């Protein structure tokens, strides 16, 4: 009589209970794996951002107050021998939308000369970089946006800006990028944008944010204080921060979905632990006599302990797998596209999330089985056998 056989018989003895427990286990684990995937994806984005060594310089009062474009030269002049700064790129909010649609696209005008350097992670081919620099109407589009509107490289698209002077401009898509964190964005050339503004009488070229690529973390920290000190007490006071600090204010302003997901994931772990514990307790109580028989016919304590514990673990692992795998498959198949400000392509379950979820299921299984298994060892064989019911 192998352990596997005993396990299988035990699970089959009360199929209703095993089934209910597994479902009660599977559903929260499905929720868990989705939540943790989202959190992991965002962590990946922020880790990727960190590696790019970028600093954002914005107006100290508010992002909407544009800084004059000449500040780029002043920032560059703070590091004349280019020891700390690789390049500076100014961005202005275009706030574009496809005509006759309600939802906007996160679209920004970028300085054409330094954009490919500061956003090196977009992995430019020579050809793409040349067409970006050659054509004033060039635009780089995130893969999510391109998929949403059915755009391809070479397409001409017209966008209406929702900020004064409400330009309507035509762009040529030169590159579609799926770089981490850039999939929901669109970048156009600021020179083209500013010229069109000037034609409408808006002669105040400026940037909402300057992005700097630095040479090292130390250089970043140095530049951060240097820039803010330099512009202090000037009409254009700045606030300089790293990319993740910049992103954090948006996350917070969107109701902190990642935090919410983390909270839900924690609650779920708590729930499945209770469900598993409950079942193991009930099933142990019903089988006290049987375990006593095992011991009476010479099963070692270790073996009895193993029987009870592995039943709990098996229930937890099978239940978790029953929740996680279908969820991963379904989400992978339908692909819920993430729109809006979160820099994520789609709601999918990542392999890391599956591993984490299975590990948690395993430990919950062990934890839930420990108390009954311990009780099984300490079971007084004689009195348990004598007990009725």
């Amino acid at each position, binding site marked *: 009589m192998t352990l596997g056989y005993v396990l299988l018989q035990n699970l089959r003895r009360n199929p209703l209970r095993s089934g*209910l427990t597994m479902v*009660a286990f599977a559903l929260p684990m499905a929720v868990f794996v989705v939540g943790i995937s989202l959190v992991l994806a965002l962590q990946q984005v922020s880790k990727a951002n960190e590696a790019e060594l970028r600093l954002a310089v914005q107006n100290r009062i*508010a992002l909407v107050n544009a800084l004059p474009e000449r500040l780029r030269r002043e920032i560059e002049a703070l590091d004349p021998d280019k020891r700390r700064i690789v390049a500076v790129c100014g961005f202005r909010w275009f706030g574009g939308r496809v005509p006759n649609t*309600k939802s906007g696209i996160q679209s920004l005008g970028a300085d054409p000369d330094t954009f490919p350097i500061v956003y090196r992670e977009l992995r430019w081919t020579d050809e793409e970089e040349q067409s970006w620099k050659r054509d004033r109407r060039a635009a780089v589009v995130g893969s999510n946006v391109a998929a949403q509107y059915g755009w391809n490289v070479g397409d001409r698209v017209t966008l209406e800006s929702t900020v004064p002077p*409400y330009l309507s401009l035509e762009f040529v898509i030169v590159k579609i990028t799926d770089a981490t964190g850039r999939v929901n964005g669109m970048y156009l050339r600021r020179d083209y944008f500013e010229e069109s503004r000037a034609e409408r009488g808006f002669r105040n070229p400026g940037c909402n944010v300057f992005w700097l690529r630095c040479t090292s973390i130390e250089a970043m920290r140095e530049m951060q204080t240097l820039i803010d000190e330099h512009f202090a007490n000037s009409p254009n006071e700045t606030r300089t921060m790293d990319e993740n600090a910049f992103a954090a204010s948006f996350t*917070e302003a969107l109701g902190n979905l990642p935090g919410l997901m983390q909270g*839900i994931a924690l*609650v779920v772990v708590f729930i499945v632990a209770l469900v598993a*514990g409950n079942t193991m307790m009930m099933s142990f109580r019903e089988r006290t006599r049987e375990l006593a028989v095992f011991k009476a016919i010479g099963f070692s304590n270790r073996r009895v302990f193993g029987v009870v514990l592995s039943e709990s673990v098996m229930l937890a692992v099978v239940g978790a797998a029953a929740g996680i795998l279908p969820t991963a498959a379904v989400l992978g198949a339908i692909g819920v596209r993430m729109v809006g400000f979160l820099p994520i392509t789609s709601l999918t379950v990542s392999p890391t999330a599956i591993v984490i979820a299975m590990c948690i299921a395993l430990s919950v299984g062990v934890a839930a089985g420990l108390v009954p298994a311990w009780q099984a060892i300490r079971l007084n064989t004689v009195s348990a056998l004598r007990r009725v019911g």
Partner: protein
Amino acid sequence: MALPIRYHWRNLLVRRTTSALTILVVTAVVGTLTWILGFFLALQSSLSVAGDAHKLLIIQRGTTSETNSAISPEEFNRLAQLAGVARDPESGEPLISPELYWQTQLPRLRDGGATRANVALRGVTLRAFEVHRNIRLLGERFSVGEPQVIVGRAAAAQFAGLAVGDVIRIGVGESREFRVVGHFDAGGGPMESEIWMYLPAMQSAYLRNGYSSVSVRLEDPASAPAAIEQVRSAPIELSAEREADYWRNQTSNVRFYQAVCFVLVAIMSLAAAFALANTMYASVAGRAREIAMLRTIGYRPHHILLGFVMESVLLSLIGGLLGCVACAAYLELVGSTKDMFGSSTFTTMAFDIRLTPLLVGWSLASVAVIGVIGALPPAWRAARTHVLTALREP
């Protein structure tokens, strides 16, 4: 005669551990459910307050929010021809309020200033207080001659430096100092997250001579479609929206998150129903003889069915109440303030998650439904217990 409540209560007590574990499952689910429900209810109620049917919001064509709208004085003057506008009973002047809208970033109090929120600044004339009827001053109003501002209640509660007497710096290059002289209440609406000041003072601080938007009070809400059409066509050529529609559009970005959260909570609730069913099945199985006894002394099958459903509902309601208490404790300890971007204003709407009777009612109602769903199959089995067989069992 139905089974007495005391009988069920005792049954739950007899299976102490199992009952407690099941209750805790429900507690966890309901606590989460209540928080999420509270979050979206608070946002919803803040927006529904904003929906004054008499008000129209006029912004520039081609834009979607006040933040990005610019209206020139000439365009504003053309609005004088708009028909159906309410008038001031004394002076007979039309209730049209030109407004300037901009923003400043202020530290959030809840994270000690680690992140900053975009807080809206609104320049208004005194007419605004007649157009926006739900504004109630708590203290002084800004005077037209002094650099003073008044601050919405929600903004004052959530962002730093907005107490009465504080000074905030605004304008191009933060050049002007304005003193906070009072707070105001907007019935919980999004305007409570704003800072208001005298329009000409704000125009001069930002070197602007135009406006961002115009709010209009209509005599009759029914004339809104006609007025919207008139604003759209020549010679006015601007864009008008009912106030409620405008604010609803500002939350379009959270709809998706809302949907995701509700799906997750629904799945968790279903899991709670399964956990309850599991417990109840075990309870039914362990009490076969007892049920048979009850049948022999005259209880009918439907009494038994009802009894088990009640037992499960009792179990889940205790869990539900504990869940609400847990949620209240969380809000008390961790904080209940939240704020959220408008999808195109980029200014924040601050609100407070509160455990209102409505919210508690919703949570308990849903948990009762979970209890019933979880109990029905085992209760059905209990009701069909075969009396003789069950009594014969050891």
